[in-house]
């Protein structure tokens, strides 16, 4: 039994069942009830690499404050099978609740007496209305909304929206099922009703998106025209969003034969003038490494999304990791400008994807955005996105230019780009080339071409945004980390007055302000989800600062705020 820390004020609701029981969509519906009632949410899903069978859980963290991490404790457990009870009773806090179907034989004898048991005959209620087995989820939603003091109308609106394509009969039936379960709670568990989902006074419209959705939506608003993506966990959902919207919004998503084709197709489309992207995980990026350097050498813009999962090889495919930082920083032979960004949550995924497209165009270069499985698949509430977007294509011309030199020397390293079909002759040459693109092995031309390309990095260094420092400017302990750890760290440092957090989103070129901040830090803790502490190694390489305190985790699970608090306590006591 874990003690609930009331300071956190985050309500953790968990749904568990078999893969194929619709856990994810049921959970998302409840998450939307929460955001439409004015709350913030974060969801965390665990599932094995199976389609049906196997244990699936979805945790929905609900709070009035921003929330960005899964919790180790559970306040409210919806158990659709025995395994959910057996595996998760250890997480239940005092006075937690367990909602389950009393028409199914479930053994609840091991659940602590401090936990409220809420048996509801869901199957019977559904049968009474004449609903199908698939509507059990709707029944649990109706009961949950009742128990948490939510507004049934909000759930009804969501049902109308969700079943819009299934027709009015389905909407009506589901709403009746929801009401039946809602009423059952009012009649039988009146004393167990709380106000967790009670609508707040001022409700600002929020979106619920995971990192994949944020990236896909950002790409579309950024004017992305061509995406070639071979399916791979955890980024496959990017292609789902893109493929279903391509006709309406006028771009092409193409499923290629492999990741080598993906990156070369995207390079071709970009060469011809389209904003282009690829998305993959570490294994797919290994195949793309070859094309990555081609894009750099022919100075063709390209956005590469790399969603990390535990490697090497197939690794632990449906879990999370941050072990690909070195891979993306060093992939491909030779030297070329390497631009690598890393997002920490859905909002940053959205913002940085746009930044990647602009950087790719401005620097005529491939740009990598690193995310991890927790970001890709964890839903988060964020303020409404807007389509208002300035698209900056950089030095780009479709005019016919006399004596055009595609790779003409320039102090900032960036030449005027053109596209085929407008009358300008040039060669996108993977061989070393002169300003027109003609192959050359001349030493002087090699030097000037190399220096031209590499000077882009100097230009970019001067316009890198400042890295974010959360918490007090001066602190006893400075945490440095990246990626999805952000949410857990921000939650953990709320419990301390003198701990701050340096969140790194720009990996290459390496931001110079990191050195200044860390030089002034009294004590530093590096937190990463990998074995070697790859960010700490990068910091040492770029700043000479060696970070001795590390919290490293590589079991595929996310870092929990509780683990960070424990680590901070152990360091502060010294």
């Amino acid at each position, binding site marked *: 039994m874990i003690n609930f820390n009331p300071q956190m004020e985050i309500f953790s609701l968990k749904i568990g069942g078999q893969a194929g029981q619709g856990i994810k969509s049921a959970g998302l519906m409840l998450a939307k009830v929460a955001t439409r009632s004015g709350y913030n949410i974060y969801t965390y899903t665990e599932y094995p690499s199976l389609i049906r069978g196997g244990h699936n859980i979805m945790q929905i963290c609900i709070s009035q404050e921003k929330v960005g991490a899964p919790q180790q404790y559970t306040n409210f457990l919806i158990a659709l099978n025995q395994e959910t009870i057996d595996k998760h009773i250890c997480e239940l806090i005092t006075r937690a609740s367990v909602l389950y179907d009393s028409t199914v034989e479930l053994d609840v004898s091991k659940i602590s007496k401090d936990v409220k048991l809420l048996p509801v005959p869901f199957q019977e209620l559904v049968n009474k209305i004449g609903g199908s087995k698939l509507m059990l989820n709707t029944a649990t939603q109706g009961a949950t909304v009742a128990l948490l003091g939510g507004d049934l109308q909000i759930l009804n609106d969501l049902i109308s929206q969700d079943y819009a394509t299934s027709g009015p009969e389905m909407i009506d039936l589901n709403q009746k099922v929801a009401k039946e379960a809602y009423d059952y709670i009012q009649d039988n568990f009146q004393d167990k009703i709380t106000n967790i989902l009670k609508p707040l006074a001022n409700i600002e419209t929020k979106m619920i998106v995971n990192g994949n959705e944020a990236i896909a939506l950002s790409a579309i608003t950024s004017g992305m025209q061509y995406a070639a993506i071979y399916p791979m966990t955890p980024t496959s959902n990017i292609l789902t969003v893109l493929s279903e919207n391509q006709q309406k919004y006028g771009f092409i998503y193409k499923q290629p034969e492999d990741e*080598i084709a993906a990156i070369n197709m995207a390079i071709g489309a970009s060469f011809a003038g389209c904003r282009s992207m690829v998305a993959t995980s570490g294994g797919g990026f290994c195949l793309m490494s070859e094309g990555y350097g081609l894009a750099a050498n022919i100075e063709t813009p390209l956005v590469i999304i790399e969603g990390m999962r535990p490697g090497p090889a197939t690794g632990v495919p449906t879990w999370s990791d941050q072990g690909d930082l070195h891979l993306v920083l060093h992939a491909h032979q030779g030297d070329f400008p390497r631009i690598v960004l890393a997002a920490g949550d859905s909002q940053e995924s959205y913002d940085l994807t746009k930044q990647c497209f602009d950087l790719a165009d401005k620097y005529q270069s491939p740009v990598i955005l690193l995310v991890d499985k927790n970001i890709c698949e964890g839903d988060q509430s964020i303020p409404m996105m807007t389509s208002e977007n300035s698209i900056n294509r950089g030095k780009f011309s479709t005019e016919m230019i006399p004596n055009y030199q595609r790779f003409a020397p320039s102090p900032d390293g960036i030449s005027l780009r053109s596209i085929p079909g407008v009358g300008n002759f040039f060669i996108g040459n993977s061989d070393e080339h002169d300003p027109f693109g003609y*192959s050359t092995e001349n030493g002087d031309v090699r030097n000037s071409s190399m220096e031209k390309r590499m000077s882009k990095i100097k230009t970019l260094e001067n316009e890198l945004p400042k890295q974010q420092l959360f918490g007090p400017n001066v602190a006893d302990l400075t945490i440095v980390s990246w990626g999805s750890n952000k949410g857990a760290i921000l939650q953990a440092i709320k419990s301390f007055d003198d701990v701050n957090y340096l969140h790194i989103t720009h990996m290459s070129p390496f931001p110079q302000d990191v050195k200044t901040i860390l030089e002034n830090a009294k004590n530093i803790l590096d937190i990463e989800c990998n074995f070697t502490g790859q960010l700490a190694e990068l910091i040492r390489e770029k700043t000479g600062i060696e970070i001795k305190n590390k919290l490293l985790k590589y079991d595929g699970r996310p870092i929990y705020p509780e683990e960070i608090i424990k680590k901070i306590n152990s360091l502060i006591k010294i």
Partner: protein
Amino acid sequence: MTKLEDLLTPCPPNWCPGCGDFAIWGAFKNAAVEMGWDNTNSVMVAGIGCHGHIINFTKITSVEGLHGRAIPVATGIKSANHRLNVFVFTGDGDSMAEGGNHFVHACRRNHNLTVILHDNAIYGLTVGQTSPTSPHGFKTKSTPDGNPDYPISPMTLAIASGATFVARGYAGDIVGLTDLIIKANKHDGFALVDILQPCVTFNKEYTHPFFQENTYKLDASYDPTNKAEAIKKSLEWGPKKIALGILYQKKKPSYESQIPQIKDKPLIELPTKKDLSELFKKYT
């Protein structure tokens, strides 16, 4: 109007004297002049191998990509701007070995590309190793005791994979080759011209006399729409049995013609500014 001198670059060809690449280059330029291919309407994509040098000697905007990857780059260009004539120059090592997967899938999807395969059955640029089209028993630097592997027929592979225009030319016949390249480009769909060419330096078996002795042109009695017959013909090899001309041609919608987004305009001309407010609402 394209004139021959418009296609000249300052780079003199660096192929070995007598190389079959000269004839392919000449035939392509002749076709360009005849058809008016230039920097306003055409783009070339080459792979890596001796053939790839062609981009330096031909003044049409081009990409020289990576070994084996010319086809996917060309696919991307064609998707982005399907008004362009997209020519792929590749070799037997480039598209049958390193890029075999891309070749098969581009055929299957019937992308509207003109693929010119410089097929000399040897690796020339790496100075003389066996290739996927080298004969069984062939002695090279990598097979000093004779090649234990059997050759693949690029045409058979193309027909079986779904290509809709499959022809064979010979680098000793510039006029015939010019005609095939033009016909391949006019075809709406994946068009392969497999060009037999001698490598005068490293392949002492497939020489001009060998090809002149053993090739023949398909005549009007041959029906290129018969797939089974075309596959059979594509597998014929040996004394006086090597057919030249269009072995297979079929009308079938190209990939690009099936994408509604680019029905009226090329992708690069579609507006990039989009109002997503309706889509955003789905996520609330």
